[in-house]
């Protein structure tokens, strides 16, 4: 049976893992590759590196980290953040990433999804979508960390991404992100039920029970987790044990 995936996400700035981008006052908490390896040994199913570095010069650092990560990791690695062109895609993949996630660049230039999918295969094209309710309560696509409403309807955009050749959707609820009050079940459901490609739920995870809930109440394929693991509030093993107790099929190591 296809397993539900647990994916730790590491936000990286200046070569270091930092606390979630929505928390005030970024503090680095360590080396991304060390973190990723630790999570792999705890039975993470994949790893996501999100480069939140602003400047062009610092791009070299992230490539170096991807290369080290690809050397050390025996599970798939997705890299996102600041990818704008086909050439960015190529360079990230060449550094050793297995998948590349694109966000605002896809909104600005949807053909990028198709071009990347044609050149590298749909399996490595992850479209990250930041969803948020507008004043009327409609789900819209936002960019710039939830500050800018693109006016695009969330479900329509997710469907279009699939049509254009995306292999997977990474759906973050900007309403839930940083709240630690649980995944946005309604939003996740809405997208999952309207596309036929895997969806990773993201934003809002504050406890093991939140992860159980998102898998019980939606048909999402994976859950993205950040602070819960970084702050050592739970280990991946503990999460998976609880999921198993709730009859959710997950991969275990030596169990």
């Amino acid at each position, binding site marked *: *049976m*296809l397993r539900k995936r647990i994916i730790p996400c590491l936000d990286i700035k200046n070569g270091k893992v930092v606390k979630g981008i929505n928390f005030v006052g970024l503090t680095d908490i360590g080396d991304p590759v060390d973190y990723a390896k630790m999570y792999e040994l705890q039975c993470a*199913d994949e790893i996501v590196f999100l480069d939140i570095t602003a400047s062009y010069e610092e791009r070299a650092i992230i490539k170096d980290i991807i290369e080290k990560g690809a050397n050390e990791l025996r599970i*798939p690695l997705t890299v996102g953040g600041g990818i704008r062109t086909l050439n960015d895609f190529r360079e990230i993949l060449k550094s050793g990433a297995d998948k590349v996630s694109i966000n605002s660049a896809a909104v600005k230039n949807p053909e990028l999804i198709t071009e990347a999918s044609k050149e590298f*295969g749909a399996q490595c094209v992850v479209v990250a979508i930041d969803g948020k309710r507008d004043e009327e309560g409609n789900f819209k696509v936002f960019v710039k960390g939830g500050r800018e409403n693109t006016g695009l309807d969330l479900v329509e955009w997710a469907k279009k991404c699939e049509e254009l050749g995306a292999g997977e959707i990474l759906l973050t609820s900007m309403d839930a992100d940083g709240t630690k009050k649980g995944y946005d079940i309604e939003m996740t459901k809405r997208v999952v039920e309207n596309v036929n490609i895997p969806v990773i739920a993201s934003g809002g995870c504050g406890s093991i029970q939140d992860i159980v809930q998102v898998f019980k109440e939606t048909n999402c394929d994976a859950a993205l987790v950040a602070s819960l693991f970084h702050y050592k509030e739970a280990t991946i093993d503990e999460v998976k044990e609880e999921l198993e107790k709730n009859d959710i099929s997950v991969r275990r190591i030596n169990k």
Partner: protein
Amino acid sequence: MIVIIDYNVGNVKSVLNACKRIGLEAIISRDEEEIKKAKGIILPGVGSFAVAMENLKKYGLVEILNDRKENNIPIIGICLGMQILFEKGFEVEECKGLGYLKGNVDMIKTTEKLPHMGWNQLYFNRQNQILKNIKELEDVYFVHSFMADFNNENVIAYTEYGGMKIPAIVGMDNVIGCQFHPEKSGEVGERILKAWKEIVEC
């Protein structure tokens, strides 16, 4: 020393890294001399069937691979590299494969999500040396939308998805194919590669 065939079908560095981790000396190459010296051949690949075959032809690799196959050199195909070991593929258009294994490759017929992406369990179908380090029901990492026909004589292990039995490890004589990515399948994948290393070294 073994050769990972370089024919422009995606990132092959992760395969090289995996070989290094298990102490299997490997190089990435499409050079005839290097391939002829190799004790084993890995055919990697992501992308589409037709492009993979076109590239093999373009670099003159089909004849070299055929010759190595005839000389009983262990060959292992991974993902797309596994699919092109079969007779024909139907991705975009009908296209001839290497034909080392009987059967064709076609879209997974299911109403479930595609690609079939993530960790899934292996069920054993036939005994083979490649299975010697793993147990039934262990998980490996898949990502694909096309699958080989289930041909009992060459299916060594399979997985289940969308009500289908999907060939996961196939093989005949010196040829082995993995639909999943052993190089991305954690410690289980590593044990599978170690079994192949032993096949190469014996």
